[in-house]
């Protein structure tokens, strides 16, 4: 099995596309944090700044027609700013972990790249005809498919790690290594303002995001196994990802949508206490994702095992 996985890794690593993707991943990550640093305005008096922010949030809540998601977000921010002023807790600044946490949106980039890699790993064997020589070895088809799946998953995990490492290093250059015990204000699952460890929140955010990444990897992998077409696999997966983001909004009106994978694939909603529906918890979302992963992986396994290889 280890031999099979190292084979698949060799095939992933020796492709030009992989290196382009890794380059883009590093460049975009580093670029985002450099831009962030350049656009930063020094705050002389945080209290005055928080007052200003509160006024702006209040204005938004009254005037604008906000989507439920945006409304909740603004409300949360208002609550935290209010808490800061009352309890005299300054916002965290200059901590690489806290900046990483704010930029958790970069994880979507890992998802897109992982979709592209996963879409290719099976279908490419078919389009290049190499599937024939691959399958006439003393290994069951299940093992061969499984080794491919493990390899893309490991590669996706590697990309996530690379994102964190690059992001941390760039920020560490600007702000120093950062204190691991720094705390900041967050809303807990009951919606109450609580002090939490920034580093641990960041680890939770990025760590748990592996599951949404894995579910998109599985989706793309399954489509490409069944259709033997990587372009379609990338297209369908990206479409679902983009549509999925707007479905999160719709979930607040239509309760049934909460069982769809999209409504559960954004871990930051739980870090910043913005569940699409009140009854949705982190545990619920993770379970839904695991279910989808198992069903999709099982589907691609059955199809791959049974199919005549022409």
């Amino acid at each position, binding site marked *: 099995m280890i*031999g*099979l996985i*190292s*084979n698949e890794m*060799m*095939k992933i690593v*020796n*492709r*030009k596309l992989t290196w382009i993707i890794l380059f883009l991943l590093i460049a975009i990550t580093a670029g985002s944090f450099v831009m962030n640093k350049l656009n930063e305005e020094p705050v002389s008096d945080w209290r005055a700044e928080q007052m200003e922010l509160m006024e702006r949030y209040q204005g938004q809540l009254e005037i604008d027609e906000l989507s439920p998601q945006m409304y909740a977000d603004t409300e949360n921010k208002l609550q935290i700013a209010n808490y800061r002023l009352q309890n005299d807790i300054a916002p965290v600044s200059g901590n690489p972990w806290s900046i990483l946490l704010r930029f958790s949106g970069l994880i979507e980039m890992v998802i897109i790249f992982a979709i592209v890699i996963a879409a290719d790993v099976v279908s490419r064997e078919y389009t*290049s*005809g*190499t599937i*024939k*020589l691959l*399958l*006439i*070895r*003393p*290994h*069951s088809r299940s093992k061969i498919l499984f080794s491919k799946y493990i390899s893309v998953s490991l590669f996706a995990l590697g990309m996530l790690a690379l994102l964190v490492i690059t992001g941390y290093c760039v920020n560490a250059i600007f702000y120093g290594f950062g204190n691991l015990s720094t705390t900041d204000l967050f809303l807990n699952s009951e919606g109450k303002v609580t002090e939490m460890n920034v580093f641990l929140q960041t680890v939770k955010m990025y760590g748990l995001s592996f599951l949404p990444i894995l579910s998109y990897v599985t989706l793309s992998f399954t489509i490409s196994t069944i259709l033997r077409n990587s372009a379609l696999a990338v297209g369908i997966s990206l479409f679902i990802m983009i549509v999925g983001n707007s479905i999160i909004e719709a979930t607040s009106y239509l309760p049934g949508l909460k069982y769809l994978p999209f409504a559960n694939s954004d871990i930051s909603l739980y870090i910043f206490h913005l569940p699409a529906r009140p009854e949705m918890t982190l545990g619920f979302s993770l379970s839904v994702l695991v279910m989808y992963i198992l069903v999709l992986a099982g589907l691609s396994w059955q199809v791959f095992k049974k199919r*005549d*290889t*022409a």
Partner: protein
Amino acid sequence: MNQQPIVQFQHTTKKIGRKIIVDDLNFDVLAGEVFGFLGPNGAGKTTTIRMMVGLIKISRGDILIKGHSIAREFEKAIRYVGGIVENPDLYKYLTGYQNLKHYARMVSGISKKRINEIVEHVGLKESIHDKVSSYSLGMRQRLGIAQALLHHPPLLILDEPTNGLDPAGIRELRNNLKELAHQEGVAVFVSSHLLSEMQLMCDKIAVLQKGKLVSIENVHEFIAKDSISRVYLEVEASQTELTKMLVADLNKTAVAGNGPSELWIQMNKEEVPELNKLLLDNGIRVLSIHVQERTLEDKFLEMMEEEQ
């Protein structure tokens, strides 16, 4: 030479929908023989090969490789097989060496030494560290053969192996395969359209037509069986008419050939001395008699026509 069966076809049948692609094959491929698998396009050759290596399922019957069913004991049976199915499709973005390493990792007990040995054997030493995308078809064919032989399989399956090889390469491959079969006792199963090549290479020939096995014989018997040869005759130009008349006495027809003094006759090789005597007795000055042996191609095409 030990002649145990390596492959046993047992009522092997492939149906796709209602259509029968391969119909009830029953034959053995023995150790130590080069087995040629012939048939026109669409006869089911590739389907048969794909069933042999487990790429497609067998609808009815079975194929045993060294006694193990390819359908039920795939991992055991496939261990004895090395091969190329259709084209030598290898990973183009990897080097030749990486390709071999890839396949070596999938079977236990293949050392680096063995890889280097096989690289040398197929004559790819110079370019083994280049990407396969830069290889010519002949080089890919060689690399394909290298991956097939990597684990010393007792059964070698090659689909159109001479494709893309130059004449020297074809000859080398032919000698190689013969050596593998005759010296090392490997069963070599070759399918090809190149009939002249098959004639030189194979010990036994099986012919498949419309999914059915129509003939399986030793290659020389196959060609010679009830065969009528063409006998070319050269006589003094002035005596051709007389010759024709004499030949007619034998109930044969002599047909004018290329030159004014040339004739040819359809007849058995065994009748040639009789013809010669008749001509000499009648004062014909025979300049040359030449029997054109039939080739596998002649026989094959004839057979296909009969079936039509």
